């Protein structure tokens, strides 16, 4: 098998689509990427807020934690409505059947609309109650909390659009892309485990995307810390790249090609993950001061207890995901 065989147009589902379907599929894919980036950014912001709140709780000041949570609730809202929009778009991208697709779009549209409405209402109430001294009180941005309101307006449009579209679906079918079927699960337990795993993996990828890009921007790449910085960027970006790869490459393959490519792709994925993980630990071994001194803001969740848990989770997860894929590929091959 040659390298270019993996990228032959004929291997992919869109090769069976007509022109309109291909354009619609492309638009949804781009929208997914854009809103994934929004979700990643808001996730990072929310994690910063959460880490501080957690720090207050751990340090025995739940009163400070409560006050901070109430002030920063719109940050949490911004993340969740972004995430639900990604899930909404994912339903358009991939679903069990047409009926399920439209039901999911409708339900998720309502959730997005409700969250965006709540966010706006919350800011208004907090302002009227005097908790925000003005609509541009400041922190974490100069426009906070007004920026949360403006951001929510975008999701009002998204939510309303999804609801209206799903309602009109029975009369007219403007979105004609055929469903990309979800793989059946052997039982409910496995399905729950799989879904939890996917959610966790997605969160790590969301974290990795902004974390990796932010590291490139803020890390102190001076002499003794440069090696660690490069290793961190690689390990961070590996998660979203792998997620994107399985989403936009593997799941776009025709069924017979999926079966054919599963094992070689999972081997490559595992090898790359092993390489990056080893690189990370070797780089840390060469300068154990680097994480704390050279831009530790990229690991917001790990600072409070001076512990490495968060770091290790971020580092190990791509490897675990790749190993799971490898095991599944070997089992599939063995069964055949």
């Amino acid at each position: 098998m040659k390298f270019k065989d993996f990228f032959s147009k004929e291997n992919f589902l869109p090769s069976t689509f007509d022109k309109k379907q291909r354009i619609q599929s492309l638009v949804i894919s781009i929208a997914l990427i854009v809103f994934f980036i929004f979700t990643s950014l808001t996730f990072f912001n929310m994690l910063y807020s959460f880490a501080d709140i957690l720090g207050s709780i751990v340090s025995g000041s739940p009163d400070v934690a409560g006050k901070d949570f109430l002030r920063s609730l719109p940050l949490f809202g911004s993340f969740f409505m972004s995430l639900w929009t990604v899930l909404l778009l994912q339903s358009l991208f991939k679903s069990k059947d047409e009926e399920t697709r439209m039901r999911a779009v409708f339900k998720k549209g309502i959730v997005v609309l409700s969250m965006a409405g709540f966010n706006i209402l919350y800011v208004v109430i907090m302002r009227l109650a005097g908790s925000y001294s003005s609509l541009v009180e400041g922190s974490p941005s100069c426009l906070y909390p007004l920026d949360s309101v403006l951001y929510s307006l975008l999701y009002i449009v998204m939510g309303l659009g999804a609801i209206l579209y799903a309602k009109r679906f029975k009369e007219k079918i403007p979105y004609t892309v055929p469903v990309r079927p979800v793989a059946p699960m052997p039982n409910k337990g496995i399905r729950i485990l799989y879904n939890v795993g996917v959610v966790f993996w997605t969160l790590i990828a969301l974290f990795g995307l902004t974390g990796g890009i932010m590291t490139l921007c803020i890390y102190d790449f001076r002499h003794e810390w440069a090696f660690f910085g490069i290793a961190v960027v690689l390990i961070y970006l590996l998660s979203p790249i792998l997620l994107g790869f399985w989403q936009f490459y593997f799941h776009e393959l025709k069924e017979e090609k999926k079966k054919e490519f599963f094992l070689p792709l999972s081997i490559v994925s595992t090898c790359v993950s092993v390489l990056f993980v080893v690189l990370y630990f070797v780089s840390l071994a060469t300068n154990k001061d680097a994480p704390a001194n050279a831009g530790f803001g990229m690991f917001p969740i790990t600072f409070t207890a001076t512990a490495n848990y968060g770091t290790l989770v971020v580092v190990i997860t791509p490897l675990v995901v790749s190993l799971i894929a490898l095991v599944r590929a070997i089992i599939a091959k063995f069964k055949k």
Partner: protein
Amino acid sequence: MNKKRLLMSLPLFTLTLTSCAQQIDWSTNLGAYLYEMEYHSGFNILQLTDIHWNVNSSTASSKQYLDKVLAEADKHVTGGIDLVELTGDQFMLANTYHVKTFVEYFETKAVEYGFMYAIIWGNHDRHGMYSPNWLADKYREAPHCIYIEPEDNLYGRSNYVINLKDGTDVKWQIYNLDSGASFSESPLAIGRNYDYIRDDQVNWFKAERALQPAANAIAYYHIPQQDNLEAWNTRSTRTHKFFKLEGFGDADKPEYKSDFIKEGRALKLKGAFMGHAHNVDWTVDYDGVVIGLGVKTGTELYFAHIDPADTKKEVVEGLASLSTPIDQKFDLIGASLVTIKDDTSFDLEHLYLNERDGGDFIVWEKW
């Protein structure tokens, strides 16, 4: 671009990320770490510590609190505040907005009250959505901010000395040290150790002291060293005061013990003040060196609530140590003030300032 070229350009890209600036050797550039201020009898240093601006902070209400602390301190001292020492953790999980707002605020206040302010890095100042170098640049650019960080081979960032000069004589030296953040003991370690003042920093301190052997010295840094705990464990034999309601948060393993206080004692170090643990402002005369934590400034992250009805030993001990009896609940937040009396001694006072609707709670307590 073909694949070969792309592969060849990767190492080049990596190189562009790394800094190539020339490092100076601290031991032959001791003058690069000096800043001078005019000495006068009653020169005062207001220590603000652990302000902790973060994504959840209301900078508006925090500034309102700082306004009150600065106004109270300015009213309390003779001739206005001379120097504000910001002893670390100005930020934690903050972003560029917070840094810019913070520096703007202190610049405005420096002009209003006529003080200079000196910056020390805390462990959390590195934990933000900004480059540590960018933060250092913001401090360097601020006209009233004292911040020296040469590209050197000395551990940490904010290691520098403020010489208080009377004519050509240096009367006192104020040492600012970066006590670091934390480090992993091994690449696979689950936990990280708090950092400590490293040997090369102690050697740098000794070298700087050798240039001004007649002057006394005070040091400011962020993370307490193991001396604080050793002094606490033998407190029954020592003069001590104020509150210790949690651990010091030092690098508690014997191998990470710093010689800074021990060496300093022999070199006329009269006081060493730090921050880090918010529920502690305990101060002790440790064989001739007064070491103590400053009062946490503001309400971010966590702080101690003190209830006179509390029977906890540490609260009772702390309250009993005060010369002004406090019979109402209060929070352990405010500031600390050092006033240099003459060539050899200084006064230390802790300010407890709590904002209250019916009038703020303000207590000054002398060491």
